[in-house]
């Protein structure tokens, strides 16, 4: 296990700079999730850490040792790919033991270690099968088995659950969380799935256009985003962004320099007609335990999303009035930077 440091890391493809100077320290045993929109550089950064992508400038340090020019095999890392990357011609046992067999370890030792790993991942009865005879979840467990058998210093996960269906994704997410708790290993996990990021991470790193926008615990990012980008990216449904003069913000003290306000769907409340900004329900999304109502307000160009209890009887077309919880409104300046929190 080891601490990982990225020091002014840059990457260019030709004249196109895709990673624009990253500084990040990941503590020993920490579970860090990289999130960001497509093309923001999170996977490229992961591949530079793995050694699969050359670094244009800057350094990657593992346990204090510069590994920027070290070949992938020499870094002591393991990687789990989105595609599982299992060898179709090898059985489950041979896939898990692939790295050990390359080191020419005795067969008996490889078999024993493969069995031990397989048992922890409930793969014991599947050892003789070929990958195409497995389900998606089983394949991903084999890929994880191959990564843990070498006892690496850092685990890298590149969108490992993207190819699974929703139910399996939840199950595998829990398994990865258990794995981290059991191994206490340094893990870096790339995803575009907010739920994975929020539930798995000790800390989330939000990427945008080759830069880190913010690093912090999931709740810190959710409650105190550093800027408009993070505020809009973290949280589903996304934060509502409002112009300071709109009826929904009437009566609130606008901090100096504020150009925009943000409020999350759960921080808006329905009130009696006349006690808040009036509007009508345009669309309803019922998710079971909660309902999201998309409201049209006369002075706002976009709809406003409001979270309601699952058994809410609100229907599309209903006229409503709503109010923002004043201490939950976040303010952003002209550059999109968050202004000092207005709540205590």
């Amino acid at each position, binding site marked *: 296990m080891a601490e990982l440091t990225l020091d002014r890391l840059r990457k260019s493809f030709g004249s196109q700079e895709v990673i624009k100077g990253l500084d990040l320290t990941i503590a020993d045993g920490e579970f860090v999730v990289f999130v960001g929109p497509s093309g923001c550089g999170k996977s490229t950064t992961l591949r530079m850490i*793995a*050694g*699969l992508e050359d670094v244009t400038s800057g350094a990657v340090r593992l346990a204090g040792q510069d590994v920027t020019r070290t*070949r*992938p*095999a*020499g870094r002591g*890392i*393991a*990687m789990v*790919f989105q*595609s599982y*990357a299992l*060898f*179709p*011609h090898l059985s489950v046992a041979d896939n898990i033991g*692939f*790295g050990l067999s*390359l*080191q020419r370890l005795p067969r008996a030792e490889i078999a024993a270690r493969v069995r031990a790993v397989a048992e922890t991942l409930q793969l014991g009865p599947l050892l003789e099968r*070929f990958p*195409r005879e497995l389900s998606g979840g089983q394949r991903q467990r084999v890929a994880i088995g*191959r990564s843990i058998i*070498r006892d690496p210093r850092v685990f890298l996960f590149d969108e490992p659950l993207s190819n699974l269906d929703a139910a399996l994704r939840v199950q595998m997410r829990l398994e990865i969380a258990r794995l981290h708790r059991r191994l206490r290993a340094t893990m870096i996990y790339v995803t575009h799935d907010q739920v994975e990021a929020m539930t798995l991470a000790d800390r989330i790193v939000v990427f945008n256009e080759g830069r880190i926008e913010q690093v912090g615990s999931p709740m810190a990012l959710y409650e105190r985003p550093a800027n408009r980008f993070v505020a809009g990216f973290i949280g589903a449904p996304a934060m509502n962004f409002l112009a300071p003069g709109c009826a929904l913000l009437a009566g609130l003290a606008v901090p100096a320099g504020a150009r925009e306000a943000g409020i999350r769907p759960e921080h808006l409340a329905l009130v009696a007609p006349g006690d808040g900004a009036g509007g009508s329900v345009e669309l309803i999304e019922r998710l079971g335990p909660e309902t999201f109502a998309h409201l049209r307000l006369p002075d706002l160009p976009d709809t406003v999303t409001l979270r309601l209890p699952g058994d809410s009887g609100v229907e599309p077309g209903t006229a409503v009035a709503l109010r923002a919880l004043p201490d939950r409104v976040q303010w952003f300046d002209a550059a999109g930077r968050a202004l000092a929190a207005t709540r205590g």
Partner: protein
Amino acid sequence: MNRQNRIWRTALLAAPLAVFGLFVVWPLMSSFYYSFTNWNGFNPNYDFVGFANFGKIVTDRLFLNATINTAIWMVAAIVLPTALGLGLALLLDRKLPGARFFKSVFYLPICLSAVIVGQIWIWIYQPDWGLLNTVLRHVTGAEHNWAWLARPNTALWSVIVAWSWQQTGLSMVIYLAGLTGIPGDLLEVCEIEGASPWQRLRRVVLPLLTPSTVVVVALSVINSLKGFDILYIMTGGGPFNSSDTLAMHMYNESFAKFRMGYGSAISVVLFLIAMVVIGLYFRQLRKVDRIYG
């Protein structure tokens, strides 16, 4: 399925089946029939001789010679183009300068007919002014006028070289397509797990090329069994039957010596050999199918 559809399907299926029956099934059945006769190919009067032609095969020294040559021809005609095609594909798959040009150059011979390939290589092997002896003369400084196609110990192998030259391009193209199909993730796993270039080739790339190898070997087997024309052009089975294969022997017995009955018996044996080879091939194919789908 309504009646009109049924009529259409039957009609459309009947046409190719009739062609197949006329040009494949009928000659095949005829061969079986004539293999039990002493027909000379012209005379309407002939006798049934039972298994006499097959009995003669057992004692025919030329048949044994042709069988050995066929075995050499088939093994070499499968192994050489496959190995050379794989080697070239692995070389050209790297982003080398001029790779695209060389791909075209190496593929070109497959576009030529066997007659042209045979003629080109007859010139190359020509004892006095052929390219091969000329090069050997310049390289070694000694006089070289070896008659490659006229010597029993080099004739068959000289044709095999010409055949491989023509067939290698096809194997190369199939392997190049196979290499393109290997997911980059799998090669990256090799890097992360610490596979040496040799381990990567032997344990990952070659096994992942199995579907390509299946196609290459299938084509090589089919082409080598049909590989009559180039032998006919270059040596005609000679000298002294040294490049005589079963197909060539069958041709000579049937159409040069006019022993159609005996020639048919040889063709039946050749058919049975082909069935065994194809049977073995399909057994392997099932194993490949289990893994690669």
